[in-house]
């Protein structure tokens, strides 16, 4: 068993989760909380990557439970004016957000924890705004967007706990 990387003077091993030991290779502060944040951010990255791909390759192929006027509610939300911010697809912005949160997990010290929380808070706030638009302006629900909003909410809570707990 290798010791926690933060105390190792040897070359660091590649990122790997060891459930038996509960620590992660190069993470800044190995622990269950960090691993949970890592997993959630990775799920978010995968989802946002898929939505970004779909955005540029045709929304019609996006699986969706909701139907309205013969079209999927996910397609309606993803093609609405709120799906872009200053011309940039929000799926792409979300992807950048998740990747940034992942990167902050590998930055040691207060800066990494703080940056992770800041990005997650921005993602959470904007997700809440988009959910409001879905419910009260578009009146159509995109399950993919709701899932991302839930992931961002969890990340905001966990990154804030991570920062405050380190005090």
């Amino acid at each position: 068993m290798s010791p926690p990387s933060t105390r190792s003077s040897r070359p660091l091993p590649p990122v790997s989760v060891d459930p038996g030991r509960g620590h992660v290779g190069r993470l800044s502060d190995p622990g269950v909380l960090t691993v949970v944040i890592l997993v959630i951010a990775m799920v978010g990255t995968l989802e946002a990557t898929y939505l970004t791909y779909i955005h540029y390759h045709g929304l019609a192929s996006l699986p969706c439970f909701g139907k309205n006027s013969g079209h999927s509610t996910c397609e309606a939300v993803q093609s609405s004016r709120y799906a872009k911010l200053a011309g940039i697809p929000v799926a792409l912005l979300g992807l950048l957000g998740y990747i940034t949160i992942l990167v902050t997990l590998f930055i040691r010290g207060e800066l990494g924890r703080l940056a992770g929380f800041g990005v997650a808070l921005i993602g959470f706030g904007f997700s809440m705004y988009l959910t409001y638009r879905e419910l009260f302006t578009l009146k159509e629900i995109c399950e993919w967007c709701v899932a991302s909003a839930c992931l961002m909410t969890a990340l905001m809570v966990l990154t804030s706990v991570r920062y405050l707990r380190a005090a």
Partner: protein
Amino acid sequence: MASRKEQKEQARAERLAKEQELAAKASRTRRLQIFGGVTAAAVIVIVVAIVVSSSGASNAVQPQTAAAKAAAKHVDSLLAGIPESGNTLGKSSAPITITEYGDLECSVCDEFATPTSFTNPEGEAGTGWEDALVSQYVRTGKAKLVYRSLETASGSNPDANAFEQQQVAAEAAGLQDKEWYYIELMYNEQGQEDTNYVTQSYLTGLAKQIPGLNFTKWMSDRSLASLKREVNTDNQQGSAVDGGEGSTPTVVVSGPGGKSKPIIGLPTNGYSAYVSAINAVE
């Protein structure tokens, strides 16, 4: 009794503990201040993002632009020579009646109504299906098209009066037998859903593109209570037809024998769904 040395060590330990406690407290305070600062900065970023997102352009075609002229030219050639009466396009004696329940802001209705060369502000291409129905069935006298109002997308317009105003504007054109011209123009010059592009200048801009429309009469007719009642009646009737789903376009194909076939939304099997419905009710 503790020796003097022990007393000094104890006092030193107490002092160190107190210093550590103060240092820890100062550190916690500093961290909380930084936490608050980052939260405030994030809130500012969120507010800016919301302002940018909320102030996007509606992308509606502006009157007198090349796009508006192209739309008017298309509608001209589509409707030229076909009789119009009120909300009906085609000969009144046509055996088949195709009733479209639509919302003039609905982008799906726009897909139904516009040619394949057209792309709406949502980036969706027209199907050309309604144009095909006009060419193959209405122009030949086999069917007539009737337009009725059903509120769907307009419900997302920040302006709660937009639906009534736009539908009444079309009906006011219908009093001069130009309702279908107004309908087709609006579908071909639609702005983005859920934006408040349906302004007075937008509505009057459409009317000014209709050849032969008495603009003064149209402006005056828009305040008729009878037209508002008609929009409300259509809306209730449409809700009953589509089962309260709020789906537009809802198309009902009715034959001379009383048979009718509703088609809710855009059919997945395309234009052939309308042809099959017409054949089934003939």
